[in-house]
């Protein structure tokens, strides 16, 4: 199923490589290649402001998102704004850095647990900042990096935690889904070369 075809069924969603950031990054060489990572957690929320709920298995739908998530259903805080939001990822390493107050941008360590950061996938060993304009595989699903995620004041208000500044530049990656399928915690994550799989 092409992303274009399934777009008609759901809310306005930008394909990753159609986003200005993603399209600019595609032809630019570089980025880490010799890595392999792991999917640690999957979370979705049924609607804006609702607490995230952890899944042991999730269905990714190309052009739409993760079944049951607010950006799949069009009920997210930012749903009215077309953007790359089918799947969002964050590095466990960024959460670890917050927990050790590194760098010391706030009063002390911040525990931002996977259920609270409001990104869909928590991953380990994946250099997310290198993946704008790149294709990579999570289990059997193929994602495309569209743009860097950036922290929002909304998250800070929702959590009552000063996470805005400490998350800057390690807030994660917004992706579209090139090939859908089922993902589970423990799935391996690998970089894919080029456009053909």
């Amino acid at each position, binding site marked *: 199923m092409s992303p274009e075809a399934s777009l008609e069924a759901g809310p306005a969603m930008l394909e990753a490589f159609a986003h200005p950031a993603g399209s600019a990054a595609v032809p630019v060489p570089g980025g880490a290649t010799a890595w392999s990572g792991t999917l640690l957690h999957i979370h979705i929320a049924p609607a804006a402001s609702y*607490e995230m709920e952890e899944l042991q298995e999730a269905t990714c739908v190309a052009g739409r998102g993760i079944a049951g998530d607010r950006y799949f259903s069009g009920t997210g805080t930012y749903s009215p704004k077309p953007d790359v939001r089918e799947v969002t990822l964050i590095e466990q390493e960024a959460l670890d850095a917050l927990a050790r107050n590194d760098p010391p941008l706030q009063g002390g360590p911040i525990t931002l647990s996977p259920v609270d950061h409001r990104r869909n996938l928590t991953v380990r060993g994946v250099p997310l900042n290198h993946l704008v304009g790149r294709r990579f595989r999570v289990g059997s699903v193929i994602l495309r990096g569209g743009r860097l995620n950036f922290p929002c004041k909304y998250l800070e208000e929702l959590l009552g935690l000063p996470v805005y500044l400490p998350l800057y530049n390690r807030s994660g990656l917004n992706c579209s889904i090139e090939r859908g399928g089922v993902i589970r915690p423990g799935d391996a994550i690998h970089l894919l070369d080029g456009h053909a799989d």
Partner: protein
Amino acid sequence: MTARMIMKLRVASARPTTPEVLHLCLVHPQRPELPAWTPGAHVDLRLPDGRVRQYSLCGDPADRTRYEIAVKREEAGRGGSAWAHRNLLPGAVAHVSAPRNNFPLVDAAREHILIGGGIGVTPLVAMARQLAAQGRSFVLHDCAPSPARAPLLDELRAICGERLRGWFSAGGRRFDPAAIGPPRDGAHVYACGPQRLLDAVRASLGAAGWPDAQVHSEVFQATLDENFKPEPFDARIASTGAVLHVPADRSLLQVLREHGLATASSCELGVCGTCTCGYRDGVVIHRDVVLPVASRQDRMTPCVSRARVGVTLDL
């Protein structure tokens, strides 16, 4: 306004505290601790059709494992309380926001006078718990038709002891705010209940010379001013210069929403303070009951407040 997390809480217990008031304990199915709160705070209960109702927390703020609310069945109400009485049985799931406090205790106060009318006593129960635990000076005046129809009366007796004054109209005892006496430094009055009780308290304390800053109240029903005739006006958006026309039969909030200037809202009655926004010039007709007087020169509540001819919004 601040965003608040919405949680799916489980009803741990539901028992009548009077024939018309249901006392609910809510717990989180996964987390051992709920977001912290202070006495006077309320939560939003979201109904299946998307409507939102506010309920004060009446439990112990020191107990993070559960929220307690009391819901009075309002036969003439807007349907939210009847839904809650029918559906919020033990084991049911309630969609509840993290708490917000528009009615806090004044930390520096030396003496607290709490006045509750009917179901309006709920935030005062939490206040009394904390004041009693801290050994601070307070008295709680509880106004109700009879002891049997006074919500959470057993709890109040246990918490307050001698500091509880029951005013039950069936027994011929009616609360007279004049009994509070003259204003005193460091004394703060907190009233919650029907509008007529709040009006009586404000009028009496005002006449006795109590400064407004020492009298606090909370209502969950907007003032009904039947003589108000909405007029059309124009709202100019400061950031873009766009001018939006607000017809007499639509709220400013509705018009903002139609133009994609989506601002979060909740009660749409002018009582919760979720949708307030800044304005720069224009004569605003404030119809909310949430903004303090000092804020009204540059903030307004677009769900109920309007303007004469035009207003420029800080959006």
